[in-house]
Structures are given as structure tokens and as C-alpha cells.
């Protein structure tokens, strides 16, 4: 039962990633693109967690944690650049 649920979830999360990528390419303004990147990394965490359950290995959480940290720092840096024209003042 869990295997079926994981397969459905893989399809849904992959479709979500495709939608984010579409918004990243199309996005009319730069905040749109930053938001798409932000959602892209959150969905990648979801995909990694699902893969960890699928193969029954707890090795992928460190990777997910690192992606979460670096993604947040990247989003903040890009927003700061848009707001001030400089990242570290």
C-alpha cells in the first residue's frame, strides 16, 4: 500500500517540479523567478524525502537539510539584491 502511495506521490511531486520550472522560465518579473526557485528547492526536499522512504534509507536527510539551508540563504540573498542593489553592505 505504501509503495503505491509513494508512486502516486512521485508523479504529483514531479508534475509540481515541472510547473515550477515552467514558471521559472516564463516568470514576467524577477520576484516571480525567485519565488519559482524557492518553490523548486522545497519540492526537491519533498522528492528526496520520498526517495528516502522508497529505498528505506535514512541517508538522504542530511542532503535535504543542506538544500533547505542553502536554498533559504540563496532566496534571502537574491531578495536583498533586488531590494538594495547590494547583498552585504
Amino acid at each position: 500500500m505504501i509503495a503505491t502511495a509513494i508512486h502516486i506521490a512521485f508523479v504529483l511531486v514531479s508534475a509540481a517540479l515541472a510547473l515550477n520550472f515552467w514558471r521559472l522560465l516564463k516568470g514576467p518579473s524577477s520576484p516571480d523567478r525567485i519565488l519559482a526557485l524557492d518553490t523548486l528547492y522545497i519540492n526537491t526536499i519533498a522528492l528526496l524525502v520520498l526517495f528516502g522512504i522508497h529505498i528505506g534509507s535514512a541517508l538522504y536527510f542530511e542532503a535535504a537539510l543542506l538544500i533547505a539551508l542553502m536554498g533559504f540563504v540563496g532566496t534571502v540573498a537574491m531578495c536583498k539584491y533586488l531590494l538594495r542593489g547590494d547583498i552585504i553592505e
Partner: protein
Amino acid sequence: MNILLEILLSVLIVAGASFTFIGSLGLARLRDFYTRLHGPTKGTTLGVGCLLIASAIFFSTRDEGISLHEGLITLFLFITAPISAHLLAKAALHLKVESLVPLPDEAIERKNKQHQKYHSVD
């Protein structure tokens, strides 16, 4: 594995993936940036939270001992999602990104103009 536990895990996984998908659908389909901001920050964060809870239950019942890594990721995501959303909204307001409704500054200007008109009539 217990059948009730299996049902709980399946429901959590499918619900989490559905919320993730709905959040991304909102990002792709809504019409202006300020409405688009709602989908990922609420829907996707909730979906990933569901998936991480499912993972925590799965690994806690499978191996010996409680798995706490997922709690760490959940906490971090739930703290950082509002911060990044706030910064994005601030950047968009700074750049005056197009909106379906008047932006706050424009709305205030219009109100002042109406106020002046009202007083000049007096």
C-alpha cells in the same frame, strides 16, 4: 507492519504530495505576483510538512529509536518560509510589480488626491 500504520502513512504521503502539487499549480496558474506568492508559501510548505511527518513515523517504527532529522527539517522550513515570503513581497513592492489591485502607495496617493478634491470643493 501494522495495517493501520500503513493506512496512516499512505494517507499522509498522498496528502502531502497533493498539497505540494496544489501549491505549485497556484504558482503556475494564478494571475499576479501577490496572489502567486500564496500558493508556494502555504500549500507547498504544508505538503512538505506532511511528507516529513510521514517519513518520521516510517523510520521511527522501522528502526530502533526515534528519528529526529525530519523534525529538524520541518522546524527549519516552517521558520524560513514566512521570512522568505516577506522578503519577496517587500522586493516586489519595491520594484512595483504589476498587481490586480492598486499597490499600497498608489492607493494612498489616490486617497490623498480625493481628499484634496473634497477640500477644494469646500
